């Protein structure tokens, strides 16, 4: 069982991801904007972060850069959540240190496979 931080500004997406991650046996916490995501990542020290690219206060890529800059969060793996049209942002995120990305709309099977792969390599 892992602790997963879901950083996403759409409450419906948070509910969906909570449901999926919890059905996989993981514990979840959520943040609704980039600022809170950074704060929660530092406070909760999750095993994995699902990070939306487009968020208020601070974008996903900005949050990622700050996470990689801080000693206490730089080793937390991050999977970006992105819409199909955001290809340039995906490249920026991967360059900034994201380990993977998932495009919306979600396939549960794909999401589960990517999360499991990242958690397995971390453990």
């Amino acid at each position, binding site marked *: 069982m892992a602790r997963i931080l879901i950083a996403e500004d759409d409450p*419906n*997406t948070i*509910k*969906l991801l909570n449901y999926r991650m919890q059905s996989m046996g993981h514990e979840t916490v959520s943040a609704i904007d980039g600022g809170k995501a950074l704060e929660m990542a530092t406070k909760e020290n999750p095993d994995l972060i699902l990070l939306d690219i487009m968020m208020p206060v601070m974008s996903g890529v900005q949050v990622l850069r700050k996470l990689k800059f801080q000693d206490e969060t730089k080793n937390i793996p991050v999977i970006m959540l992105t819409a199909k049209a955001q290809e340039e942002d995906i490249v920026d995120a991967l360059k900034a240190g994201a380990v993977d990305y998932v495009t919306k*709309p*979600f*396939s*549960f099977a794909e999401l589960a496979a990517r999360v499991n792969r990242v958690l397995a390599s971390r453990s």
Partner: protein
Amino acid sequence: MLGAIYTVISLQLLILATLFYLVLHRVIVRLLEHRAERRKQYFEPHVFNLLNNPEATEPLERSPRPGDRNLVKELLLQQAVQLKGEERQNMTAAFENLGYVESEISALHSRRWWRRLEAAINLGIIQSQVAISFLIGATKDPVEDVRLAAVRALGQLNNPWGLKVLLNAIEEGERWTGSNIVEVLIGMGAMVSPEIVSRLESTTNVNARLLYVRLCGLLRIPQAVRRLCLLLDDADKETRISAARALGQIGDISAVESLISSLDDESWEVKAQAAKALGALGDVIAVEKLKEKLSDKNWWVRHNAANSLYQLGEGGVEVLHKTSASGEGLSSIVAAQILAERALGV
């Protein structure tokens, strides 16, 4: 005196009544919101259960409250729009089992156009094959927004009929707004590419051809490159401009030679677009010809040529530095300008 007192008292009573109404209204709204939130929390776990078992609709059908049916529909739609794959198919089955597909199909015949629009949008999200023939009918709706929503929904169902309707509308040039058509076609994705390339080859309608060229660029259809290169020699200037732009957007280097030839076009707009496209294609064989265009009499041509030289990397940047240092007229000015802009990160 009595009249004045009476007036003051009446005004005070009116203000009190208004305040009372506002407070009461706020309390009622809060209560209704709270109730709706509780109903939502009751239904949400059952909605999530449907993701794995679309037959498990009984808890959602049980509630007798009139507003709940719409609430459940909204919850289902909110989740369906975020999903693909097996879970999405399960949601579609759940919509069918709960009777929402039938009710939205009925709503396609509503007298209120906004309800027909909502129904077409919802059927696109629901993605039930049962709705196809009814959506095809809705592509003839008198309201353009409804027609577009029906076409978009058919695209989401991967049904080619919507594409045919739109492409025929392009040829007919009536009843549809061009920018709306482009937006919907782009939203349909890769399924439209073969048909657009085929129509680009065959159409004789100049306006339709311009729209197809634009779409080829926006959708980055590599199969259109050969035809677009031929269109760089078209008699119509707008066609040549659009073809050069589209080739830049597609980014296929097989177009480089044709675009280099277009740098000698009689129209400055074509030359400027060709110069810009060559930067996007990134092939260094364009450096020499772009260098010539640094002294073109038109500012846009010079500017785009200089920009593209910078984009072509070391060879192009070296040309810019030498030209800037030479101090020779317009070419040195534009070279210096681009180097300065890039140094500032502009």
